[in-house]
């Protein structure tokens, strides 16, 4: 079977990614953020995308231990020499550019978990425990930065990938039960402000100027968008700085104010289409590792979109999570694009393991495998 590179890759995926990047740039421009820099991030991200796509993903599996070690190293480095901003130590300065290892670690975790889970015949309790042990150290390092948002993404990726790896529902159920039992310990683990955010999420009006401010202003902005929006660059709330973190965590509120419900539905449709493309890619993945990597990228992005949009409209508590490809930020943008590049690599490198694809065809094998 000699298919060309062109016929093997997913054509629609880069198109959807491009649409998201353009909408993201427009919104960032409107939010008075440093949009030329975001163009640079996207350019770097596209380079990472291409490199990741060209790189044979199967070799990543062999690099898993090194990737895991590198991830821990970065996260430890943050704790030791990281820069502090807004009360959290999250950034490393790399050649003058701020690098946020916790963003990078989302993708690294996907790769490491995929490598670990793909070697297992079946998901025994032991294997489950192994996965937990694998995730615990980086998750702890991130939670104590503190970065609740990324920790939530970690948990989502873990649960999602365990599910893809064939965990039984009762296995996940008992995991959830253990988590519930551990809940009383949470107040000790969470920082004061994180606890406060949870309380505010439950009752945003209790402190409209303090902790509830972000949520309230974002909700006002989203609501002010109405059906058709205030128009690009014409959102009052966003333009006048009432929406906090308007280029990053709350960029969706800016988008919603300016483009309205119709714009939001279009944006969600693009994300939805991208998600469907990822599921399709997972379905045609030539091996278990590839399938788990694509599935992991899917979970990583889906969790971030849902949490970010959810917190912007007040149905989920606030946690610092960017909206993939829309929010301003180098580490997040490059990580997202690199992750999507790895997905293309899985598509591109199918010929080396093509017999498997011929056996399964294009049928959706997500759950059956």
């Amino acid at each position, binding site marked *: 079977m000699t298919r060309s590179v062109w016929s093997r890759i997913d054509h629609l995926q880069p198109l959807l990614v491009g649409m998201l990047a353009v909408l993201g740039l427009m919104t960032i421009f409107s939010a008075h953020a440093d949009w030329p820099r975001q163009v640079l991030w996207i350019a770097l991200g596209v380079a990472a995308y291409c490199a990741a796509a060209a790189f044979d993903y199967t070799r990543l599996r062999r690099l898993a231990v090194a990737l895991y070690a590198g991830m821990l190293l970065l996260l430890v480095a943050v704790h030791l020499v990281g820069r502090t901003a807004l009360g959290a130590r999250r950034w490393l300065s790399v050649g003058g550019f701020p690098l946020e290892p916790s963003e990078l670690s989302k993708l690294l975790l996907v790769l490491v978990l995929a490598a670990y889970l793909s070697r297992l015949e079946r998901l025994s309790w032991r294997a489950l425990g192994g996965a937990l042990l694998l995730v615990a150290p980086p998750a702890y390092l991130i939670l104590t930065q503190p970065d609740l948002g990324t920790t939530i993404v970690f948990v989502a990726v873990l649960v999602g990938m365990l599910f893809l790896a064939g965990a039984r529902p009762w296995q996940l159920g008992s995991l959830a039960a253990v988590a519930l039992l551990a809940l009383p310990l949470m107040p000790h683990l969470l920082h004061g402000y994180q606890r406060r955010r949870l309380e505010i999420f439950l009752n945003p009006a209790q402190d409209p100027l303090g902790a509830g401010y972000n949520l309230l*202003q974002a909700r006002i902005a989203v*609501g*002010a968008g109405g059906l058709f929006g205030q128009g690009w660059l014409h959102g009052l709330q966003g333009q*006048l700085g*009432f929406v906090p973190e308007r280029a990053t965590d709350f960029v969706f509120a800016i988008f*919603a104010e300016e483009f309205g*419900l119709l714009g939001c539905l279009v944006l969600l449709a693009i994300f939805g289409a991208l998600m469907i493309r990822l599921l399709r890619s997972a379905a045609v993945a030539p091996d278990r590792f590839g399938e788990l990597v694509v599935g992991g990228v899917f979970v990583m992005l889906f969790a971030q979109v849902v949490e970010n949009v959810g917190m912007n409209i007040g*149905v989920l508590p606030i946690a610092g999570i960017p909206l993939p490809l829309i929010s301003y930020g180098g580490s997040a943008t490059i990580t997202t694009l690199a992750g999507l590049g790895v997905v293309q690599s899985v598509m591109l490198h199918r010929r080396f393991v093509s017999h498997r694809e011929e056996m399964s065809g294009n049928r959706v094998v997500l759950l059956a495998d």
Partner: protein
Amino acid sequence: MVIVVAGLAVKLAQMQVSEGSALAGLARANTVHRIVLEAERGIIYDRHGSALVENSPVWTLEVVPAALPRDAISRAKELAQLARITGQPEDQLATSLAATDPYAPVHIGANLDEAHYLAINELLPQLTGASMTQHAIRTYADPLVFGHVLGYVGPLNDADVQRLRPLGYQPDEVVGKVGVEAGFEAQLRGTDGWADVEVDARGQIVRTVVTKPAVPGHAVYLSVDAVLQRGTAQSLAAGLQRDGKTAGASVVIDPRTGEVLAMVSLPGYDTNLFTRGISRADYAKLLADPDRPMLNRAIAGQYPPGSTFKMVTATAALQEGKITPQTLLGCPSYIDVGGWIYHNWASYNLGYMNVAKALALSCDTFFYQVAAMVGDVTLARYARAFGFGQAKDIEMPGVEAGLVPDRIWKEIQCGVPDLNSDACRWSLGDTLTFGIGQSYLLTTPLNQAVYVAALANQGEVLKPTLLHEVRDASGAVIETQHTQVAGKVPASTIALEAAREGMREEINLPYNMNYWFRAAGVPADGGGKTGTAQWGGSGLDLPTHAWFLFFAPYAASEIAMSVFVEGGGTAEVQAAPIGVDIMKFYNANQAAIRTQ
């Protein structure tokens, strides 16, 4: 996945469509604020256009609580800095900033002068949410001279708010409280404008959406002549000082028009203290001052007129046919009425004289006889015709009427059930002392000036006014003073002329009043009358008040004045020289004062 995304979409639709307009309203309330554009208050000028007040710039420091730093440390730091700048305790500041509407600016420092403004302005970039707004504050020229005329403006009190709300006053506005600031409030106050502005999260104005410009108040040109006002104040102050007195008043009027050319009440006080918010200590000091500096004696000081009233008695007697200009009556040192002795000021008999001579010599016993002939009811009627007992309709609040007594008044006010008691029943003695301006009679320096102007003016009682003209902001005249005749004394020319003749003789008697005129080099061409008024009841040995009324020239008079010295002693010695001095000043500064 589909369910989750659909859930988000439904929630979005609910927020943006069903709650959309409510949330959009909140967004507008967040971002669009209406600010008041203060109308500049009109300037008050004298009749020749010299400004008596200016609007000086002051600054208010205000803070939008919603725009303060949100993290606790920088917030506390900023509060500490604001507390230091404004000199307010920090906890008090925190309380006032915890207002109900976090987007409404809270004033934390008011009436800051330019030096303060410049100092704070430098710090402003570090003070998130703080801003300074400029407004105008009244600064009065020479408050000790003009203060009682101009009055002052002040913040609305509760009663004002009730009264002025329908006129569109805002609770933080100022309103004229006393003087012409109050009297011409309607003309001086402009109409505030407003602007809808977009502000950003820090409270900084980004853009103006709609503007309705403010309309400045009108300029009021007073009838007062600043030069003559200063001269009058100087003459009065010098006269008071000469005799160790502290309080007095003088009103100078143009007898042709009723325009008040000068109105002085001493002591004065610093009205500028009030515009910047007077301190408790300063206010207590003003209230405790025994000379009552805040009392405008020219309009609100009520005193018996004493002998200055005798022209009324004379006019009444002549007009009622009780005497003629030629009738001769005696001027003994006292008369005995049913066992009660009524004294003249002289302890010897001055002989027979006509009414003019009796006025010139101010013979009390002559006028006791005349008053008895006229009777109290008729006398009261003539007194009212000359404007006694009437609160003049002049452009400032607090004008007192004085009092014209008669038997009905006495019965009403006596407060004793027995109507035949001395406190209730009008006696002949009351009539006699009424005839020489005593008994219960009270008048004010303003009423006296109107009265002497009427004598200068063939009996025309004019409505006194402080208005010359009103101009709008572009300088166009929109209101001019019109002479209004309030009434005509029902007396013939012969009767009035006899009274006037008495006043001319008084200032021309050699060795008497004429001395002051000759000493000052002022021609005694006019008419004058002194009055030394007893007060506080006969049993008390209080110093008498001194009056001097004067008009000039005798024919075609152009100036009429009343001079009053509280506790002044003898009028010829205390009040008359002040009047002569004012006249001297007037003559010397004719060119500057020229009233028409």
